[in-house]
């Protein structure tokens, strides 16, 4: 793990590491003699919690639940997200059971909401950097290597099963433009798909004409939409995905 990951891990550890043991409720027998490093991140020297075949450090034990050798704290699987700063932590989950478990984390804000709601809120109104946004999935085995802190409000990393790099300024600009023009979702999807196909130059001439016609039709329905879609990220990008989520998910 490089220093970039280590800095993120330190931030994660501040909130979850020391409390992980209580949070998971593991009995935590001492590891077998000779085992000195964590099976998840390879860290040496820390306190290890032993399972049947593997031993995990304070951090990895919180997320290693679904893997063999550890008494599975099922609540630590997918379906929750966390926003962590040095000053506060915010956790969201839709599960009442998880909410009860998270109450062992003092000073953390607990919200009954979907993970995407927290992520959308963080993209639109990010806290002061540095901060870390984590979406926990069901495969959190390598979570220690998959953490990345954000040092700017405009470039936000979404840690988790994969590390997504999101240009949050593009997302905010896109959401503002879509909301201002009150573009119907289907019309926006069709227009951006057509524009993306033209921009990528992957269509034959007949397909290009059809795509141009789609944009012309959209312009007739909603004058000014062409300018908006020209400034939007292309379809398939993570920014486009979050613009759509932030613009339409709550409607």
């Amino acid at each position: 793990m490089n220093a970039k990951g280590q800095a993120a891990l330190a931030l994660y550890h501040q909130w979850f590491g020391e409390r992980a043991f209580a949070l998971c409720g593991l009995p935590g027998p001492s590891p077998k003699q000779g085992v000195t490093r964590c099976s998840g991140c390879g860290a040496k020297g820390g306190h290890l919690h032993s399972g049947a075949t593997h031993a995990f450090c304070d951090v990895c034990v919180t997320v290693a639940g679904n893997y063999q050798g550890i008494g599975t704290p099922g609540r630590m699987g997918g379906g929750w997200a966390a926003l962590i700063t040095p000053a506060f932590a915010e956790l969201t989950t839709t599960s009442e059971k998880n909410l009860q478990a998270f109450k062992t984390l003092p000073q953390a804000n607990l919200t009954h909401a979907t993970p995407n709601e927290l992520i959308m809120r963080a993209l639109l109104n990010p806290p002061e950097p540095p901060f870390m946004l984590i979406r926990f999935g069901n495969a959190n085995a390598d979570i220690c290597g998959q953490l990345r802190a954000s040092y700017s409000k405009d470039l936000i990393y979404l840690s988790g099963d994969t590390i997504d790099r999101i240009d949050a300024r593009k997302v905010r600009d896109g959401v503002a433009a879509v909301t201002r023009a009150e573009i119907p979702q289907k019309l926006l999807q069709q227009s951006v798909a057509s524009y993306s196909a033209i921009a990528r130059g992957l269509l034959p001439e007949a397909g290009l004409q059809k795509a141009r016609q789609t944009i012309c039709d959209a312009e007739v329905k909603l004058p000014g939409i062409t300018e908006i879609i020209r400034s939007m990220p292309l379809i398939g990008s993570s920014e486009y995905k979050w613009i759509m989520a932030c613009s339409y998910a709550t409607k």
Partner: protein
Amino acid sequence: MSKTIPFLIEAVLDSPVILSSDAYLTLDSLLSASCQLRGEDDTHLPLRRTADVYHASAGILVGNPITSEAAFLARLTVRDCNNPRIKPNKKSGLIISTVSFPDKARLDRYQAFHAAKVIWLGCGDPDETLRILSRLPGLGKRYNAGYGQVSAYSVTPIQRDFSMQLPDDTLARPVPIRICQQLGIDLSHAHLDRATYKPNYFDFTQADLCALPTTRLINKDDVDFLKEAI
């Protein structure tokens, strides 16, 4: 360094090149790698330097490349044998399972770009830079598996130094924010992140808060504009 002039280097690609979103393939990183591969000293690259930062842009792909996924399977290797849990050929030793976490085979997924060319902007000795660069066996990750193969390099002297900032005022390479003012770089629209900004780029212990480049693609017409800009 015998001469210091701005220049533009073009590399014609024979195969797709693998680039990740936070690896910028800067010209100085490639020159440093080329020197290190031959065991040569890489502390004096033939490029101008301002406050620890070389005047060498990130790699910019020409055109609108098709992307594909390049996936590689990574298994336990010899270097993993330092792990105390691995004790081969010993019945009484600790055992590992290579079919489950954490020792199972891992699938590394990269994004490969099918571009015709890559360009870099620099300031320094163009001929020496081209000589060192052209010794590289390939560009980007997994060049030893056939990615990032280059058929030809060419260098063109240009009028203005765009190696730090492009004509549209976006950054051409990662620059630490502590020297942005010295270089006259406006940070109001810059993306900030912790990144490395000098060789060895893989050594994140020397990372600093940097303003990052956002231009990763360029049209062919804009390349001609860069060559002719005065």
